[in-house]
Structure formats: C-alpha cells, structure tokens
C-alpha cells in the first residue's frame, strides 16, 4: 500500500499541480495576467453579485394578461362571424378563459368559420398546422368556446420568449457591463447586473410595456376634459400622461402601432429647444400614416403610450415621409429612455418584479475582506491544533490542507463556478472538515500501533481500514451538498458548490498526497510521529 509506482506518483502530482496552476491567476491583478505566457491559465474565480456588488432581479411575465388579450381577440372574432351570418345571440359571457353565449341556428359551418378566422389571426403566434386552437362545445342553443390548452401554453411561452428578447435589448441599450438575462421556469426571467447597486432606472425601463399607438382623437362629441361623459361606441377615454385628470376621447382604431417603427432617437426641437424623440416608420407604417394624415388634415391625433396620451397634435398637413417627432414635456433623460423603449419594442405583457437583491460594491469588498481574514485565522488555528495533536503526521495533514485550499480555488477558477459569501463560508468549513479524512486515518494508525503493529504495517492497515469509513462519512455530506445545490439559487448555491469541491479535494489529498508524503518517509517513521508517546 505504501509503495507507489512512478506512474502513480506522476499522475497524483500532475493532478495537483495542474489544479494549483488554475488557482494562481487569483493572486495577480488583471494587468499582470496580461504579461503571462499564453499557455498559462488566466481565469479568475467568478465572484457572485454579493461579493462584487450588483443587482439581481427576478421578473415574471404577467401571463394572465396574455390570456386576457387572446380571449378579447377571440371575442371580437366570434361577434364578427355571428353578425356576418345574421345570428342573434344573447347572454354573451366572457370569462377568464372562455366565451359562452346563447344563439339559434349555430351549425358546423359557422363553427368552421370561427375556427378559421381565429386560426388566421393567431398564425403569428404558433405554427400548429391544420390543428385547431379552439374547442367549441354546443348544448342545444348554448355555445361555449375555449382555447385549447396547447394554444394557451404556446401563447404564454412565445410571449415569455419575446419578453426575454425585449428585456435583453432594453438592458443592452443602457450599456450595462456583462448583464446576464436568463429564462427561469415557464414564465420567469432572472436578470443579474454586476456593478449596478441602484437599479431604479432599469426597473423603471422594465416596468413599462411601451406599447405605442397613433390614434385619431374623436372630435364628433363635445366633452369636458376634466369630467368626461361616456365615450361613443368605437372610442375610448384615455388620460393624459402629464396630467391624470385631463382626459381625451380617442378612436379605438389604431392608425399605426409601435411595431411599425424602425428607429427612434432622442433629440431637441430646434425651435423650442425642448427634448423630443424623433422616429421613423417602416414602409408599411409610412404608407398607413401617410394615408390617414392625408384624410384628416386639421384634426388632432393622439400619440398613446401604454394607454396614456403623451400628446395630441393637430395634423397640419399629410405626413408622407414616414418620420415624425414626439414632444410631451419630457426632460432629456425621459426622452432618452423613451427612445430606448421604442427601439427595443413593446413587451407582449407587463412584467412584475418578484424579487430584488442589490448589493453595493462597499459591502461586497467588506465581505471579501472579512471572509479572507476569517479564513486565515481559522486556517492558522486548525494548523496549530493538528500539529499539537498529531505531531509529525499533523504537519503532513497541514501541508495537505494548504494544498487542499488552493485546489478548491483552482477548481473554482477552472469551472468558472461562482464564489459567493456563503461560498467563502463553505471553504472555511472545508478547512475544518478537510482534516477529517486524515484524522480518521491517523487514529487507525495509532490503534494499529497500540495493538502491536510496527510502524510500516500500522500505516498500511490504517489506510486500508479507514477507507470505507471515509467514503461513507463524506458521501453523507456530499448528499446534503447536492440537495442544497438543486434547491437553492444565488449565494446559497455557491455554498453547496464550495462544500462539494472541498469534499472531493480533501478525500483526494488524504488518499494520495498525504500517503505519498508518508511513503517517502516510511522508513524513518516513529510512533511519536503520529502523536503517540513512545511507551504507549
């Protein structure tokens, strides 16, 4: 057991040296690393947001809103078909996910017509082939229409994917450093923003759906903006963005929507020097806008953002060039943000912030400092204690412990795992627990000596007998670490990572490195080396 073939010695040392090499970059600054030769690893440990400072946001796409919108569209489609076929319906009920009404003369022809219309209107949502997206059930004259579960699922999934893309664009526009934007589960988005500890601006950017529309103002009725009466059919009452109390009556039909914009830039009005956002339509948008403005010269139209009227200028002449500008009393940052929002596009549904965790750079730096100091003190205490108890063997265990610590750091750098504050705690805990494998072995060795073995046999048997105990004992801790890894996220997950790495490196060093050290000195070993008095 104490004999190591050269190949074995070589491979053990190779593993250790390579892992240690990966730890080295952490002790140098980024500039110094530049000067290292190319073959040298340069990856440093990835610090978690709690250590480097930054912001973590968990968002959820408001899926109810998406389903509501789908049902609303279906509602319009169904009514149109019924009207077209001159069917009189009554008791029309719109619930969360279905429509229900009573009608006479509803037949499979009409059913087919509804299905086809609904399908053609949702073509862009999903490619389902000939499959229908509706379930229509009829009981005498009562008809109920539901979306298929598959369709709802697809709509939500599409909306989340689309939201992810728009969130990414909006954040990229702000020029943040290495943001990470990931989908989590079916309807959530995790955003990690290193270096940002006050994410107010980002939160406000993400808090708007930024649905921009151009709608004509309904001038057919006289009304008091501060006390509006009911809007006529086909129109709606919308509040002004600047003054909640001031209302407009706006035609529901959308002239052009934000999806037809190709560019938006902040700027200043040359005459008034007021911040504005200038925009450009794509070809379709330009044509539509040109046509409507031509027909409505002299009438006002409303620029509506998220159901609020930003401004309602009067059309002086047909706008055919496909570009225009929005002024609405913003300051320059507001104009800038609006331009970002318009360029990035509208969210398909509102985003709700479920969780926010932001750490300032000071606290992160303090945590690293405190963690390092605690590690060094704990480390020294353990080293002294081990020598006190096991003498020479304790020293060997200490050397292994040092190697161990650097190996944990090396493995963390190699796999680019994230080191967090609880992760540092995990490393410190590893310092305490790493010696366990060696302790188990040394205790066995002592016991063998006490039972009359000579030193060589004692060491050999000690290793043999301790093996299964060490494995059992470490597997239990490893199980806990693995469960923690899957259950936790963020900082706590970092703890499970360092704990697990620590278990592997400590078992590895105990069985290879310490043993190697002992085997080199095997002939010179004496019982007091393991902390036994000579006459024991």
């Amino acid at each position, binding site marked *: 057991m104490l004999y190591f073939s050269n190949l074995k010695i070589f491979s053990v040392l190779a593993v250790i040296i390579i892992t240690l090499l990966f730890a080295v970059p952490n002790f140098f600054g980024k500039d110094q690393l530049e000067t290292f030769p190319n073959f040298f690893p340069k990856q440093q440990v990835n610090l978690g947001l709690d250590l480097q400072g930054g912001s973590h946001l968990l968002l959820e796409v408001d899926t109810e809103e998406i389903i509501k919108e789908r049902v609303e569209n279906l509602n319009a489609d169904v009514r149109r078909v019924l009207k077209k076929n001159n069917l009189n319906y009554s008791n029309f009920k719109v619930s969360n996910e279905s429509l229900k009404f009573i009608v006479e003369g509803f037949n499979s022809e009409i059913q087919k017509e509804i299905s086809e219309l609904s399908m053609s209107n949702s073509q862009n949502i999903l490619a389902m082939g000939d499959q229908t997206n509706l379930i229509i059930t009829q009981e005498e004259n009562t008809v109920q229409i539901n979306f298929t579960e598959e369709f709802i699922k697809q709509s939500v999934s599409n909306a989340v994917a689309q939201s992810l893309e728009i969130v990414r664009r909006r954040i990229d526009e702000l020029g943040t450093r290495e943001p990470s934007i990931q989908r989590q589960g079916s309807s959530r988005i995790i955003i990690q923003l290193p270096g940002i500890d006050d994410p107010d601006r980002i939160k406000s950017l993400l808090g708007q759906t930024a649905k921009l529309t151009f709608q004509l103002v309904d001038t057919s009725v006289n009304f008091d903006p501060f006390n509006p009466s009911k809007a006529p059919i086909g129109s709606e009452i919308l509040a002004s963005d600047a003054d909640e109390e001031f209302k407009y009556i706006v035609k529901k039909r959308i002239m052009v929507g934000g999806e037809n914009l190709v560019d938006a830039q902040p700027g200043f009005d040359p005459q008034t020097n007021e911040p504005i956002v200038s925009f450009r339509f794509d070809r379709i948008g330009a044509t539509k806008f040109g046509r409507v403005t031509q027909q409505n010269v002299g009438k006002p139209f409303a620029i509506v953002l998220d159901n609020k009227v930003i401004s309602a200028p009067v059309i002086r002449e047909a706008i055919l060039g496909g570009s225009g500008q929005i002024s609405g009393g913003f300051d320059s940052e507001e104009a800038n943000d609006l331009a970002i929002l318009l360029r990035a596009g509208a969210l398909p549904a509102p985003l709700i912030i479920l969780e926010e965790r932001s750490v*300032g750079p*000071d606290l992160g730096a303090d945590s690293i400092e405190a*963690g390092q*100091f605690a590690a060094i003190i*704990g480390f020294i205490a353990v080293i002294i204690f081990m020598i006190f108890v096991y003498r020479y063997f304790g020293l060997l265990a200490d050397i292994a412990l040092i190697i161990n610590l650097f190996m944990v750091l090396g493995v963390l750098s190699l796999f680019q795992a994230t080191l967090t504050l*609880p992760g540092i705690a995990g490393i*410190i805990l590893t310092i305490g*627990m790493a010696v366990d494998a060696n302790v*188990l072995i040394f205790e066995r060795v002592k016991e063998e000596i006490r039972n009359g073995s000579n030193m060589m046999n004692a060491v050999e048997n000690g290793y043999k007998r301790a093996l299964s105990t060490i494995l059992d004992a470490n597997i239990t801790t490893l199980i806990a670490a693995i469960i923690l890894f899957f259950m936790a996220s963020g900082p706590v997950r970092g703890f*499970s990572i360092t704990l697990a790495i620590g278990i592997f490196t400590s078992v590895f060093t105990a069985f290879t490195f310490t043993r190697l050290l002992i085997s080199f000195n095997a002939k010179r070993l004496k019982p007091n080396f393991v902390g036994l008095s000579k006459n024991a």
Partner: protein
Amino acid sequence: MLNISGTQINFLKVRVITFILSAILIFLSIGAFFVNGLNFGIDFKGGTLIEIETSQEIEISGLRDNLNTLELGDVQVQEFGSSKNLLIRVEQQLGGDQVQQDVVQIVKDSLGSYLSTDINFRRTEVVGPKVSGELIQSGAIAIFVAVFAMLVYIWFRFEWQFSLGAVLALVHDVILTIGVFCITQLEFNLPIIAAILTIVGYSMNDTVVVYDRVRENLRKYRSKEITDLLNLSINDTLSRTIVTSVTTLLALLSLFIFGGEVIKGFTFAMIWGVIVGTYSSIFVAAPLLRYLDVKREWNTTSAVDSTR
C-alpha cells in the same frame, strides 16, 4: 500532548439521563415553535430590507419614528455591526408583488430628507409574497429530502436498525436547531436552511463513523454484550470525533468572530449544529442501537468491508 486514545468511558451508563435531556430539549423546541414561532426574515416573510451606512452616528429611535409615519406598516430599524450601519426592515405590503417595489423608493426618499448625513446604500432586498411562499416550501422540502436520502443511504450501507437510529438522531438535531432559533428569536432566513442541511450532512458523518465501528466490532466480538460493545465503539472513535469537531469549530468560530455581520446567523446555526450533532452521535445515535435489536450474525464475507 493531547491524548484521548484508549479511553474507557461508560457512555451507555448515562443514557437514561441523556435521553431525558434530549427529550426535554426537544419538548422545549417544539413548545417554543408553537409559542414563539420562528422569526422569519424577509426571505420567508416577504418585505423589504435596506442596509445603510452613514457618515455620522444616527439616533435610531428618531429615525424609527420618522419611518413609521410613512404608513408602510411596521418598520424596524436596528444597528448592524456598528452604530453607523443600520438595517431597516419594512414588512410586506398588502396588494401583491407589484406594490412591494414602491417601498424602496419611499424609504429612500424619506431617508434622504430626514438624515442630513451622507447615506451609502449597502444592500437592498425586496422579496414579494410569491417568492417568499415558494422559498419556505422549497426549504422545507429540501430538509425532508436530505433526511430521507440519509435514511436510504444508511439503510443501503448498513441495516435498517442503523438507519432508524441515525435518522432519529438527525431529526433530533434538526429539531434542536430550529428550536434554538425559536427560543433566541434570531432571524431565520435562507442561509439558515443551508446551515441545517449542512448540519444534517455533518451529524450524519459523525454518526456514520461511530456506526462503522459498531459494525466492525459486531463482527469482531460476536459474544460481547451489546452495551459493552457500543461503549467500546464510541470510545474507539472518540478521539476522532473530538478532533474533527474541534477543527470544525475552530474554523467556524473564526468565521463567526471575523466573518462579518451578514453571515453571522448562518455561522451561529452551524456552530450550534456541530455541537448538537457531535453530542447526538455519541449520546443518542449510538445508545439507540441498544434498543433496536441489531443483527449479530454479520456475513463476514460481505462486500461492505473487504478489509476483514
């Protein structure tokens, strides 16, 4: 020189006393759980937490009174490590996830106008009702899964008697750890769940070492009285149990004293857990085997221990 080898302490003799002690502690823990309950942090209760650092010392009660006029419900202000570091906690607002976000701005504005010193916002955490509910659930599930996984693992490696004994000791440790948080009313948050899971692993580790020796001795001394055999096994492994506990505690104490405020609760739980876990391996897990009718006829050629 420290030498705890070759001890012959009669641990089993005091088993009645330690069992009663454990029973009392468990009873107290469960009692405190129902009387005091856990002092959940925002991870599990939802709400807002803001840590600030000011350039001058702040009179806390004045600030607290000021923040409590904001109609945000209960606002707590406490010192955090030093008198210039303050922790502000605002309870969860009614009205769902969206509303929670407004709290940060309201508190920040109010602090800005009330305090005349520079304010450094060191940490801001907002946890909405949806997430906090999920975190409680997944935390509880994780602990159950961990204990169950240990049960299966020990069953697989040993015998059901060992498995039952080890898990009873484990449940003992988890209850006492949760109990100490109910009694001290220290904040119970996500890292504490991590600490409990680690305690589960650590305590199991300790128990497995003792059980391993019990199994070995069962094969070695076939006719030895079970009480003597358990005593022998505990004594055989006592030195290791103590050395490992001490090194772990040394590292944890260093972390507790020097590691900063943020992880103090976590370290406290770990220190407590290591002490309780060590105690339970010696005084609960091992003595329990006496009552569990362990098998004496181990198959000596079993693959479990190939060294014999």
